[in-house]
């Protein structure tokens, strides 16, 4: 039986990851507000940055400008981006990068003290300790409080206004009712919706953080917030088996992509060489029987290999272990590459909450930053930081006019029942693990997973929609014996809500805009006259209602109007 604990704060941040920590730092530095971070793991290593990252992928070196970055993102994402959002982040990339350096991040510099650039917009770092650096900065502020090992489940809404959250502890029998003057959602994206590359023992050896289960999206969906771009899934091109990043090899030792016959194949899939095209070309080569595909590393020098080892240990140690365990070092054997299962990630693609230019969602009192926020692909670490900053300043401004809310006794009783429902219910036939497996199978087979080469069509999507709804129905009756089981139920329910919205968005976009990410067999062509627009949705009375919206241009200041 979970017992209630009530807390109040000024600014509540859900998720102490990249964006969440930076939002907290911004709020604490610029105001006297009380800031509370609620984090399901521990902010020292939680979220995407746990293992480390090896570059800051959004930096503007000499010759690049916020305009040129926007142009790059617009091209890569085939025009359907929120220009206001991309531009405002790009304006801040370099400043937040310098701030990270002040916090202690090591960045590679040339003899003149300039950051060394990799590709067009990446700078090289030692990113192994990037998350501990952020966490220790957070610890220096007395007006930031951190609740680790507490999982947030839902927003508390009053007349559509978000006034707090419900959460439960993962360590003691306590549920939390937390009231706040403003809430910032920074829970990252969603992994584990589709059957992963390694579905068995190594089921969590995926690229995106498997503990980011789309909780923030699901909470927003359930509360009726408008969502955008869920049809633009992110499918990464990664090293086979370890699902480790490939950019370090491709850009570091300038390895080209070759097929099983040793031919460079990207040129065959012309047009612009966008991120989705690199992935799609690899899938297509395999489908034509010309796989497997590789990054051509054979013949690199011993020294290059050593540097690759170090770079990978700083972000994806499994890759180095794989090289040495198999004896197929990159110098001796090309590195096989593969497409991952689809993720929903607002920092790489455009899926997430629909926001105004201030990062306010359509629910008053709720702001969002990082992979949870939509409309703005290619944020990466610097963009997530910059967005955390913008969201924090907007939340602070909003919070000044707000009073803390509280539940009546009756409402509190209802919450107590709700938070204990899974313990009080009778044993059910299905547990979270079975439900997760079923969900991933459905998404793989009917909603364009790895198994079907990512291709979608209307008939299969209709089946997916029906089956996910059936699972969601069964999921409401699942029983938990302990806190880990309760968490697993919550995670799979959250994922099911996200799946529902992903399917509805894919059904709505009747064209093919992003090869692989959103490739519709019924409408195989890109159709600019009709589809250069956003697919958005709101969840109302159990239904995902689709709304279309026109492209927001760079100079516009977008505000919610309907």
């Amino acid at each position, binding site marked *: 039986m979970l017992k209630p604990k009530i807390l109040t704060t000024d600014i509540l941040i859900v998720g102490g990851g990249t964006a969440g920590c930076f939002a907290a730092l911004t709020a604490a530095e610029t105001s006297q507000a009380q800031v509370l971070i609620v984090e*399901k*793991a*521990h902010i*020292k*290593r*939680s*979220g995407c940055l*746990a*293992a480390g990252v*090896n*570059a800051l992928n959004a930096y503007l070196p000499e010759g690049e400008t916020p305009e040129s970055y926007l142009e790059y993102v617009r091209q890569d994402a085939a025009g359907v981006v929120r220009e206001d959002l991309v531009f405002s982040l790009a304006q801040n990339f370099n400043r937040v990068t310098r701030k990270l350096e002040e916090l202690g991040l*090591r*960045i*590679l510099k040339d003899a003149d003290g300039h950051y*060394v650039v*990799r590709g067009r917009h990446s700078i*090289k*770092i*030692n990113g*192994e*300790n990037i998350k501990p650096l952020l966490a220790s900065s957070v610890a220096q502020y007395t007006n930031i409080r951190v609740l*680790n*090992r507490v999982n947030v489940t839902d927003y508390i809404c009053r007349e559509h206004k978000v006034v707090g959250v419900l959460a439960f502890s*993962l360590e003691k029998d306590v549920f939390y009712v937390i009231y706040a003057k403003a809430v910032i959602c920074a829970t990252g994206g969603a992994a584990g919706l589709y059957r992963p590359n*390694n579905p*068995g*023992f*190594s*089921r*969590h*050896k*995926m690229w995106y*953080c*498997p*503990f980011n289960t789309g909780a923030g999206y699901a909470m927003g969906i359930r509360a009726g917030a408008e969502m955008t771009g869920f049809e633009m899934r992110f499918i990464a091109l990664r090293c086979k*088996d*370890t699902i480790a990043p490939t950019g*370090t*090899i491709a*850009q*570091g*030792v300038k390895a080209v992509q070759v097929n099983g016959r040793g031919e460079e194949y990207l040129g065959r899939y012309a047009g612009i060489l966008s991120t989705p095209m690199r992935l799609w070309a690899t899938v297509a080569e395999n489908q034509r029987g010309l796989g497997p595909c590789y990054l051509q590393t054979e013949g690199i020098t011993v020294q290059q290999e*050593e*540097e*690759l*080892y*170090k*770079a990978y*240990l*700083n972000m994806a*140690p*499994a890759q*180095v*272990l*794989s090289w*040495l*365990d*198999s004896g197929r070092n990159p110098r001796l054997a090309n590195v096989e590459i593969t497409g991952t299962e689809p993720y929903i990630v607002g920092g790489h693609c455009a899926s997430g909450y629909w926001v105004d230019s201030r990062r306010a969602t359509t629910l008053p009192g709720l702001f969002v930053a990082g992979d949870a926020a939509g409309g703005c692909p290619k944020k990466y670490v610097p963009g997530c930081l910059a967005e955390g900053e913008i969201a924090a300043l907007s939340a602070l401004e909003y919070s000044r006019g707000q009073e803390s809310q509280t539940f009546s006794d009756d409402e509190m009783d209802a919450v107590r029942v709700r938070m204990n429902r899974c313990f009080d219910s009778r044993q059910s036939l299905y547990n979270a693990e079975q439900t997760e497996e079923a969900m991933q199978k459905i998404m793989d087979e009917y909603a364009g997973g790895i198994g079907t080469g990512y291709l979608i069509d209307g008939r299969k999507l209709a089946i997916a929609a029906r089956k996910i709804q059936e699972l969601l129905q069964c999921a409401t009756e699942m029983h938990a014996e302990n806190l*880990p089981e309760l*968490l697993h139920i919550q995670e799979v329910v959250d994922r099911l809500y996200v799946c529902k919205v992903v399917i509805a968005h894919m059904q709505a976009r009747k064209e093919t805009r992003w090869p692989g990410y959103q490739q519709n067999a019924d409408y195989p062509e890109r159709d600019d006259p009709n589809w250069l627009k956003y697919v958005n949705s709101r969840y109302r009375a159990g239904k995902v209602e689709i709304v279309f919206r026109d492209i927001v241009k760079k100079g516009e200041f977008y505000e919610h109007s309907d």
Partner: protein
Amino acid sequence: MSIRIDQSLCTGCGLCRDVCPGGLIRQDERKKAFIPEPRDCWGCAACLKECGYGAIRYFLGSDMGGQGAYLVVKDEQGCLHWQINKNGLHTHIRVNKKEANIY
């Protein structure tokens, strides 16, 4: 992909349990660490870096091509000392935490 905890080396400090981004590690009644569901490991290596006693080994599942090698790491004097062990042979790679990657 997962970790294996050698309880005979574990002192029960609990640091690995605190840091795991998936909250996967628990401690038994003697405070010794264990991972109830090894399949849920992401392979981030955060727990290994915390363990000052080398009690945590990191290995590839056979579904990822694992053939018996494992990885341990020690955080000492500003460096991460990674050691990959395969059939009794050790490969040692030192990464200075103050140096950025060349790649």
